[in-house]
């Protein structure tokens, strides 16, 4: 178990831990955007820069993927580290000026506003952190979205920028999106969920009881496949929204004949 010093605080961490893990353990906050514990690390947003001292050199590194070693001293709040993080944040604010989530993070970092003009186009404030792409590939296993274009033309999109057939409408991408770019839209009339802005749509399963949307049909099928349960009872339960499911359970309980202990 290596020990590392972060802003003067010594913490012992597991082998293979990152500087970010160590900082968490030490109770020191480092802002992150493209990091999520559930998916692989990309270190592409560069908002988690910290300063590192090793032997006689000092360097800025990303906390999310730098492996902790015995011989390093980490400075999260050094002038240079803060300046680097704020600089990156200002660039992101210039790109995505309307994201409330981003503004909130900026404020927490002490960045009131950006002094850069908007020079790159972003699709609804997308900062290209790529969490959606990774969650879709690594967790959901669908790879329905990916990066397209290079440099300032880079965007996240489904292949050929068309609605994707691979999208199962699970909404995991919307959950991990840190800046509110990805939204779920329910189209009641067509009984469909749309993953916006990717335009992908999936048929919704409506609650048999109350008609409220439950999940997409494909998700329910995948869940069924995953748990390996295919009994009539389970299928029945999946067809109910959480609320009705609870009610049903309660009703079943209430009406069940009471068996005496033998």
């Amino acid at each position: 178990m290596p020990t590392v010093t972060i802003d003067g605080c010594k913490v012992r961490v597991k082998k293979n831990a990152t500087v970010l893990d160590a900082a968490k353990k030490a109770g020191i906050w480092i802002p992150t955007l493209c990091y999520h514990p559930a998916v692989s690390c990309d270190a592409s947003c560069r908002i988690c820069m910290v300063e590192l001292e090793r032997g006689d050199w000092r360097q800025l590194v990303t906390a999310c993927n730098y492996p902790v070693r015995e011989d390093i001293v980490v400075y999260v709040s050094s002038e240079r580290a803060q300046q680097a993080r704020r600089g990156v944040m200002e660039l992101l604010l210039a790109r995505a000026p309307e994201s409330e989530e981003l503004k909130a993070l900026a404020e927490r970092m002490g960045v009131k506003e950006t002094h850069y003009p908007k020079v790159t186009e972003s699709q609804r404030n997308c900062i290209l952190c790529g969490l959606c792409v990774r969650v879709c590939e690594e967790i959901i296993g669908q790879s329905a979205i990916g990066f397209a274009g290079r440099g300032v033309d880079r965007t996240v999109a489904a292949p050929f920028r068309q609605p994707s057939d691979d999208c199962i409408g699970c909404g995991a991408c919307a959950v991990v999106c840190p800046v509110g770019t990805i939204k779920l839209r329910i189209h009641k009339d067509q009984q469909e969920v749309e993953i916006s802005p990717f335009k992908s749509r999936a048929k919704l399963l409506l609650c048999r009881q109350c008609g409220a949307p439950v999940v997409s049909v494909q998700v329910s099928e995948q869940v069924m496949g995953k748990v390996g349960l295919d009994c009539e009872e389970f299928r029945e339960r999946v067809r109910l929204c959480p609320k009705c499911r609870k009610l049903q359970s309660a009703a079943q309980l209430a009406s069940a004949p009471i068996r005496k202990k033998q």
Partner: protein
Amino acid sequence: MTKLCGKRLNNHEELELVREDLLKHRNSGTKSVCVCVGPGCAAKGANRLYELFCEAVRQSDSKVKVEAKSVGCHGLCECGPIILIQPGDIFYQRVEEPDVAEIFRETVLSDRIVERLLHEDPSTGEKARSPDEIPFYKAQNRIALAYNGLIDPANIEDYIAAGGYTALPKALTTMTSEEIIAEVELAGLRGRGGGGFPTARKWRSCRESDGSPKYVICNGDEGDPGAFMDRAIMEGNPHSVIEGMVIGAYAIGSSQGYIYVRNEYPLSVERLKEAIEQARQWGFLGEDILGSSFSFNIRINRGGGAFVCGESTALMASLEGRTGEPRAKYVHTVESGFRGKPTNLNNVETWTNIPPIINRGGEWFAGIGTEKSKGTKVFSLVGNVVNTGLVEVPMGITLRRIIDEIGGGVRDGKRFKAVQTGGPSGGCIPSEHLDARVDFDELTKLGSMMGSGGMIVMDEGTCMVRVARYFTEFLQKESCGKCTPCREGLAQMLHILNRITRGEGDVGDIEELGVLAELLEGTALCALGKTAANPVLSTIRYFRDEYDAHILDRHCPAKECRGLFRYEIDAEACKACGICLKNCPEDAITGEKEVPHVINQEKCTLCGICWEKCPFTAVLKV
């Protein structure tokens, strides 16, 4: 010829027998016409010349035995197409189709020189018969390019006869891996692909890394605009790259290699493919190489078509079939690279230097160059210089000698302004530092770098802010867009530079560029972003007054930025011919016969047509 020729050779002795035979056969009075079909000469019709010589050879009924060869780049591309006649080393330049018959009749068959096609020194008027007498070649020292222009790249026998594949048996049969690495270490060889990392140290780390299999890769992605060093080697002497790789693979303990070739280089791919096939037939590749029980194979992959694919992690991602984007990793690729296995990546020129180091020893190599930069470096010398082309110079030579002696000085009698080295993320070095030595660390100290060997000479008419803008734009377009500072920061820098060159700069812009530069250097994910601000930083460092003139005076001192200078007619030089007046699309010029003409500045849209058309250069940029 012995029966061994073209057969798989089982050991060192067989190879030497074959070599002796080849030499005997070759020294028996055959004349060779070596037609350079390198990129420069090919663009000027050299392939057709080669066909004509082949035809001439076929039709000749003379007793003289003649062979025509198409060979790789000679270097002096400015004077192409180039033809070299052996024996005698007779060098003809700017050869055209009608010259072929004369060369064949006079020089090849009758040993007479065609004076008109010889190289002439522009300053002294002296004619040179062979490359050794041409100033362009005199100050060069060719190791990587030693056989370029002499051997037929498509014929392994040429390479063997010239002494190729002597280092390989030496390494395999008389040296241990550690001895090979020690030799390379003694040579002090540093990577020629840009970073200048000590090659032996990389090899050793890879050798000592846990994990198998191990891979060796040759980086032939060469994405720098205008650069063609690696191309010249791959197309001019592909076997030297292969030989270097086999030796490296043996030292590292790898049995599979890859050559990653830039997508725009189909001829390089073809040459390398042929060479690999031949090397396999002869037993220099494949199983049990020269009976040593060491096995190694090479595959060729075509590049992903983006500049950033030359970056080590992006290259490996591309090789794996994924998008060619850099990966953020603090674990080195010698530990976990291609397919997560220990991988050693070297540049084409780095690999080519290996056989001569093994043959002649590390000490010999280390005897060339400076304390920390050993050997030679190939540069592609371009821009406003008299002799553009490919040059190989010993490290430690001054920039001045390269530009003046080899390059023949600045073109058209203009004054020198700066030399840009290091590719798009290099820097511009001004005249006061022309005596700086070509050395990894010295160039870095000057705010530029060695890079992979681009060298662009700029004359007094070059606007340095525009130069910075040009490279920033290149890098911004080539940025993969993965990380924030590079994608957004370069776009911000370009935005500022665009404003400055349009005359809309603000006080404080230079400082803002400095802030962005520091941010990029400190936070970008890969070396593209980290070094992308070099062109801007180096031009601010040496040409700050030009930035100030653009911003404060709305004036471009080099008169390149449209709108930041005016056109005026010099009344004394004007002959009142009326040509400008007739050509001005805006009717902005007034004048009559025998009265000097005048430009109405209010109406002038600065199109520059009058300046182009005036036969008396009376239109001035002020």
